[in-house]
């Protein structure tokens, strides 16, 4: 299994190691991941204005590079995934956007949405298989009650993302079960963490993130796991305030696979203690 990989700015910068963690976990599962030679920021937010072209260009460049490599494009960050997948859909279905972007980017062959955009979780579920993941787990997280946090961007709008049931998703719970932990279902798992409001209106972001953490706690979660760096930040900094550990799910995976991930610095809390099967392990 081979994939082109779009890391995105966040996973290259402060949460850098979490990107590497995910890639090494993929390697351990027999997936070969090649980072795109050159890539630019995905644009961070999908431009909702239909006539907006400029902010879609860098996503298209990444898609074209993946098409040249003849590989599906793997993404890890929810925002990158959201932007690239939706831009790809525009390129496939909206002839107006397609024509304008192609005339601007001028690739050797016009791009029409041919690249398949795959999120890391989808890769695990559909290409590796959660059963195979479970078989390779050497340090299962037994006894851990893990609340998956999806946030918004992976799931919505479901018609564009086609990722999972937008109101009752199961993909993260599938992975949590595969690495030996017990998934916790709670109603706030697909409600917003506060997103970029954290810059503009910290109070509002705090209220939102705290609501997510409260809901997870009330349903008996020991910790929250997510794959989105922004959610990770908001839940950790604005929601949990030390009351509930929030992890990058791929780091939990890496630990379960016995890769002994080092704790990440700053906001991106990555657990290293899980391999010791210790349930109380605030980083």
């Amino acid at each position: 299994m081979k994939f082109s990989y779009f890391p995105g700015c966040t996973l290259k910068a402060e949460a850098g190691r979490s990107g590497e963690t995910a890639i090494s976990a993929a390697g351990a599962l027999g997936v070969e991941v090649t980072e795109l030679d050159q890539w630019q920021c995905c644009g961070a937010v999908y431009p909702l204005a239909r006539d907006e072209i400029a902010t879609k260009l860098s996503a298209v460049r990444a898609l074209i590079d993946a098409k040249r490599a003849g590989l599906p494009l793997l993404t890890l960050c929810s925002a990158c995934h959201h932007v690239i997948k939706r831009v790809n859909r525009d390129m496939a279905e909206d002839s107006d956007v397609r024509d304008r972007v192609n005339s601007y980017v001028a690739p050797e062959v016009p791009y029409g949405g041919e690249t398949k955009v795959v999120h890391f979780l989808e890769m695990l579920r559909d290409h590796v298989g959660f059963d195979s993941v479970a078989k390779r787990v050497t340090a299962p997280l037994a006894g851990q009650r893990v609340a998956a946090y999806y946030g918004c961007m992976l799931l919505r709008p479901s018609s564009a993302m086609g990722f999972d049931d937008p109101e009752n998703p199961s993909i993260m719970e599938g992975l949590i079960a595969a690495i030996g932990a017990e998934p916790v279902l709670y109603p706030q798992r697909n409600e917003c963490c506060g997103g970029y409001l954290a810059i503009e209106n910290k109070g509002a972001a705090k209220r939102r993130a705290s609501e997510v953490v409260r809901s997870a706690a009330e349903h008996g979660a020991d910790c929250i796991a997510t794959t989105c760096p922004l959610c990770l930040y908001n839940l950790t900094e604005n929601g949990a305030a030390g009351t509930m550990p929030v992890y990058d799910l791929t780091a939990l995976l890496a630990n379960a696979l016995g890769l002994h991930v080092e704790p990440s610095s700053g906001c991106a809390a990555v657990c290293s203690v899980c391999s010791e099967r210790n349930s109380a392990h605030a980083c």
Partner: protein
Amino acid sequence: MRVDNDDILRSSGTDVRKCMKCGKCSGACPSFDEMDFPPHIFVSMVERGDAAALLSSKSLWTCMSCFACVERCPRGVEPANVIEAVRASAMSPQGANRMRPEDVPVFLGAAGECLVPQQLLASAFRKYSR
């Protein structure tokens, strides 16, 4: 400030006339309490051609683009797109950006490293300026 309602309709790419005024968007919105004009009123006012009144709305800056309204709308109206279109209009005059490059350094550490996820800065910058 002047705003062209038709521009907003076009750039939102959604048909606000399909709205049946059920209010599910505002029933789903997690940011409702932070808003002066909730999503259903955005749609309604744009539909009747009164987008200008929304340009100074607090809601422009408290919508989190979480797409709960888009996902749950039974009529396929995309309220978040309408809000975004008005937000873009509100920022189109010179100097109307909500976030400026000089606002960024407070989020940087001594060595220029980012104190928040880079994605957060990038998204906020994209949403709050143009």
